[in-house]
């Protein structure tokens, strides 16, 4: 029977299977980044939380400054400062419950420290030691990830595994604006949405990927607009407003914990320092832009709010500053010691058990080190 023959019965219909899988409207970000400080919403924020955030912001900035100083003294191989982005760093750490996991990117030392990791251990990689000075399981902080966006699928897998085991665990994964261009970003968000994994993606849009400005990175209305394409909500927040970042992340974490699936949060912020101490930012941006952003400083914003509402006085500011100095002094002192590394450790953790090949190589190194240690005359 040709179609002609059955024509009488045939009725064009819409494609039978199609229906929107979800309503797109609630997944789209608001037109403006969400703000709390300086708005009416600030009245509803928990003063305790705001003060806690403030203390951590001040400490964070001081940490960045100290770490950058340590690079100049050759005590750190390299340091990517998050000055200007402290609100994101600190809120990401504080928003998590104890059993939750943080998946930081290479710039997120502050978040790692705010989560409880020892400030020196958090710098292990950057001082040129074996990567993870900290035990990832102790504070549930994954190793800082250098290959961009590769940590995102890890966060999804971990959150998914926890859910399968029936554990109440949320994973929060951090990535930069540049990192959103990587395929791993896409694949991670898609897996997360399909699996409805309890994971929150925090994009710190700090305007640059090294020298490359956002306009060369994406043409999207905002990075948060990517969320709808995965079927998860996208949220836009003022990344320098610690209260706003915390609130938006807290909502997302709550949603994830309740089985509502993943959220993508874009925090608009700015990298005030160069990419790392080795970078020369004057090559690609002007001072004027930096100055504008300094006018929108996360610490100043919060301090203004707190003092304006009588939640913080000069003493409070001074105390926070003192705490930060104490931390910095301790960091400086502890970082002045060279870490003790044993070359024989090269072979210890490649596998659970070294292969016969590694055992041979270990013996070779052992012999070399012994020869080196011999008195001068005995050497070649």
């Amino acid at each position, binding site marked *: 029977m040709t179609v002609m023959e059955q024509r009488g019965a045939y009725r064009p219909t819409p494609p039978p299977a199609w229906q929107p899988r979800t309503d797109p409207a609630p997944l789209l970000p608001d037109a403006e980044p969400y703000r709390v400080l300086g708005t009416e919403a600030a009245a509803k924020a928990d003063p305790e939380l705001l003060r806690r955030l403030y203390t951590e912001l001040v400490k964070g900035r001081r940490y960045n400054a100290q770490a950058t100083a340590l690079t100049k003294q050759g005590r750190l191989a390299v340091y990517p400062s998050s000055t200007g982005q402290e609100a994101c760093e600190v809120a990401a750490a504080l928003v998590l419950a104890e059993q939750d996991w943080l998946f930081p990117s290479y710039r997120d030392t502050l978040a790692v420290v705010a989560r409880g990791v020892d400030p020196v251990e958090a710098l292990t990689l950057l001082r040129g030691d074996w990567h993870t000075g900290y035990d990832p399981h102790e504070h549930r902080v*994954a190793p800082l990830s250098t290959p961009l966006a590769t940590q995102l699928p890890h966060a999804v897998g971990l959150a998914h595994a926890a859910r399968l085991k029936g554990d109440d665990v949320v994973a929060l994964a951090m990535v930069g604006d540049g990192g959103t261009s990587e395929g791993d970003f896409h694949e991670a968000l898609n897996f997360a949405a399909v699996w409805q994994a309890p994971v929150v993606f925090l994009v710190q849009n700090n305007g640059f990927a090294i020298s490359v400005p956002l306009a060369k990175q994406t043409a999207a209305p905002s990075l948060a607009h990517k969320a709808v394409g995965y079927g998860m909500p996208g949220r836009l927040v003022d990344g320098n407003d610690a209260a706003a970042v915390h609130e938006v992340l807290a909502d997302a974490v709550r949603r994830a914990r309740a089985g509502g699936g993943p959220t993508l949060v874009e925090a608009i912020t700015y990298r005030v320092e160069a990419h790392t101490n080795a970078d020369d930012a004057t090559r690609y941006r002007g001072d004027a832009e930096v100055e504008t952003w300094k006018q929108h400083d996360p610490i100043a914003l919060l301090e203004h709010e707190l003092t304006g509402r009588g939640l913080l006085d000069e003493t409070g500011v001074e105390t926070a500053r003192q705490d930060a100095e104490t931390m910095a002094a301790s960091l400086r002192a502890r970082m002045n010691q060279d870490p003790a590394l044993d070359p024989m450790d090269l072979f210890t*953790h490649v596998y659970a058990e070294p292969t016969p090949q590694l055992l041979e190589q270990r013996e070779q190194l052992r012999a070399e080190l012994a020869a080196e240690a011999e008195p001068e005359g005995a050497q070649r």
Partner: protein
Amino acid sequence: MTTVAVKPATMAQALTRAMRDAMAADPSVHVMGEDVGTLGGVFRVTDGLAEEFGEDRCTDTPLAEAGILGTAVGMAMYGLRPVVEMQFDAFAYPAFEQLVSHVAKTRNRTRGKMPLPLTIRVPYGGGIGGVEHHSDSSEAYYMATPGLHVVTPATVADAYGLLRAAIASDDPVVFLEPKRLYWSKDSWNPEEPTAVEPIGRAVVRRSGRSATLITYGPSLPVCMEAAEAARAEGWDLEVVDLRSLVPFDDETVCASVRRTGRAVVVHESGGFGGPGGEIAARVTERCFHHLEAPVLRVAGFDLPYPPPMLERHHLPGVDRILDAVGRLQWEAES
């Protein structure tokens, strides 16, 4: 090994059985990949697992290999033992960064704090008439990546035993499955599955005195055939099946070569920069004074895998192996 099988099973079935037994024994074993669930995999190697253990234990993932491996890494971080299927050799390449920069390195960079017990199953090699991108031999990439174990069975019994071992390993294992042996059968008895094979031991599949053929995976049957054929030429060939490329069993291989004094490495992966170079070099380093001739290599040509209609000219066959054996300087030359 030589138990008489009640009803012989294929290598594919032995692999299925290995996953099934591992999943039954350990609830942390999860199988994941493209089409592994409802369909049971394009080679049906995961057939029945989703039905028996549920979709959460045998999961059809979205179509994204970096995502598959990357999420498996996260699952392993949380203590699961993911068994990932890459649908074909060439389709594992999108996951290369995850493999090299995370899977292979995570135990080391966390000083043992975060081991990744992960098995990555990769059907590999040619000889099944596959169109392009379906017949790559990618073992050289994995061998050159410290932190990975690289294992490949050549018999049905090993398929079972080695896959169990891979899944039980606390380290990531790239488990290379010779596609064209999926339908092969031997004496393995599915009623009495073989014990878990330790990873890292080669085995002498055929004893001989004239020369050693060193091989693995898809080339083992070819070498066994060549060894049979060689008898007519008066050569009594020993055949060593490596089974594990990493770690490498220098002991078994070198013991054989010291006995025979001559060796040919056989694999279908391209020769240049392929596994054979490493094998020939290390055997020579260790057995130089026992060698009557250089260790020769019989490998695929150095070209992108050819189309089905030409693959027989590319793949090492019996004649090419015998030619190489013939060049092992049976009479002393200058």
